[in-house]
């Protein structure tokens, strides 16, 4: 990964975070809220691997918590784990699979929701599981709708892994 790629990923996540906190949090469809930041992070992590996913998740979460004056580190923690996990999936079994972004977004939306709920619960803050569950399915659908265009944009800006970047070493036996 080059410095230019890193800058592009940073800009993408920054724009996604700003759009998320400024615009999309006001859009409620059947109690569900679309999360373009999560979808962008998934796309970046799938295309750039676990380390970029984790670092991107950490700073994107920090950005969100700063912009909303929320509990610093809370969103970072959840997005770091999500970015890392999706990055590992992209480096291994999800590589070159067309359904990988959609599957990742669907699963991560669920885990992200439960992760935030868990952290809030552990911190002793209000953790309304009913409200989260009520908006979960609409949120998954909305995020899946966002997946195709967001992934296409991210893929265009960040070139896909070259085969040589991801090929593991070949070991001759015998």
């Amino acid at each position, binding site marked *: 990964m080059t410095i230019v790629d890193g800058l592009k990923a940073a800009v993408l996540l920054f724009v996604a975070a*700003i*759009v998320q906190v400024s615009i999309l949090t006001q859009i409620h469809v059947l109690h569900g809220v679309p999360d373009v930041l999560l979808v962008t992070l998934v796309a970046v992590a799938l295309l750039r691997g676990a380390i970029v996913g984790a670092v991107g998740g950490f700073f994107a979460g920090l950005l969100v918590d700063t912009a909303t004056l929320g509990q610093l580190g809370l969103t970072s923690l959840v997005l*770091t784990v999500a970015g*890392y996990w999706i990055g590992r999936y992209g480096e291994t079994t999800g590589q070159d699979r067309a359904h990988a972004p959609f599957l990742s977004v669907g699963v991560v939306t669920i885990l992200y929701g439960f992760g935030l709920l868990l952290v809030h619960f552990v911190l002793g803050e209000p953790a309304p599981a009913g409200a989260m569950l009520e908006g979960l399915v609409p949120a998954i659908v909305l995020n899946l709708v966002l997946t195709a265009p967001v992934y296409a944009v991210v893929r265009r800006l960040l070139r896909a892994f070259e085969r040589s970047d991801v090929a593991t*070493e070949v070991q001759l036996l015998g």
Partner: protein
Amino acid sequence: MLASSAQRKSERRPPRGRSAALRRAVLAVLVLGALALLTISFRSPTSGALHDAQGYGASALRPFQVAATRVARPFRDAYGYVSSLTSAKSKNAKLHREVSYYQALALKNLAAAKENASLKRLLDYEQGPAYPKDYHAVNASVISFPSGPFDQQITISAGSNRGLRVNTPIVSADGLVGRVTNVGRVTATVALLTDPDSVVAARDLTTKVFGLIRHGQGNTLILDQVAKDEVVNRGDVIVTQGTRDRRYPDLYPYGIPVGQVISVGTSDIATYRTVQVAPFAKLTGLDAVAALIPTKASKLP
């Protein structure tokens, strides 16, 4: 060839074990960093260096947020417009349901207020000097009204469980209403003064002339059995006669207002005067009535 290719790659890339260790180290550092931030901000949520830094960061991000909001405003307005259109139908139906509900509630409150006024007047009557002695009142609501011109009976919400019996007198705050003709456990049927079978011994309060109150034309009553030589004047008040001889007890106690004389007529061929009486009780619009229960047993015949 494969070996040489692998050799070149291994020169450019870190070994697999190192790559995994680096990856895990980065994850661990980031998670620990997030936990550290979380701990610090949780312990001092409104003060401290981290809070100040967060404030500066938020200030720095504010222009971007404002710009994003301005860019998105037309789209958001369009979304709001479409969203309101799609929800207008369901909102309309919901509002219609609410209007129906509140209309019903308003009518119920109106009826309750009216009944309350009737009960208050009834209470005034029961505590007033005109209330007959040796009787206590059992208040009841009117739960059904005469169904037609041939039915001059009402049903009230009190029955044998509250001491009502057949022939128990029923009054309203204005005057005599009728008597009980049938008793259930919690309800009773009352024959109004305008019932064809109703007969009440009554007297003119001013001239002391005795007569029998029967039903007349329309909603009026007639004071019957008044001889031609006796004097009854228009405007005189008619009250119940009450028991005059213990051997022949009357159904009604003395002095319950029945009505007011509205006309007095005489004809050559008739034996008695024709005295028309307008009942005091509004027999067609009763809300609350009182049953007069004798305080002494077997007072009723």
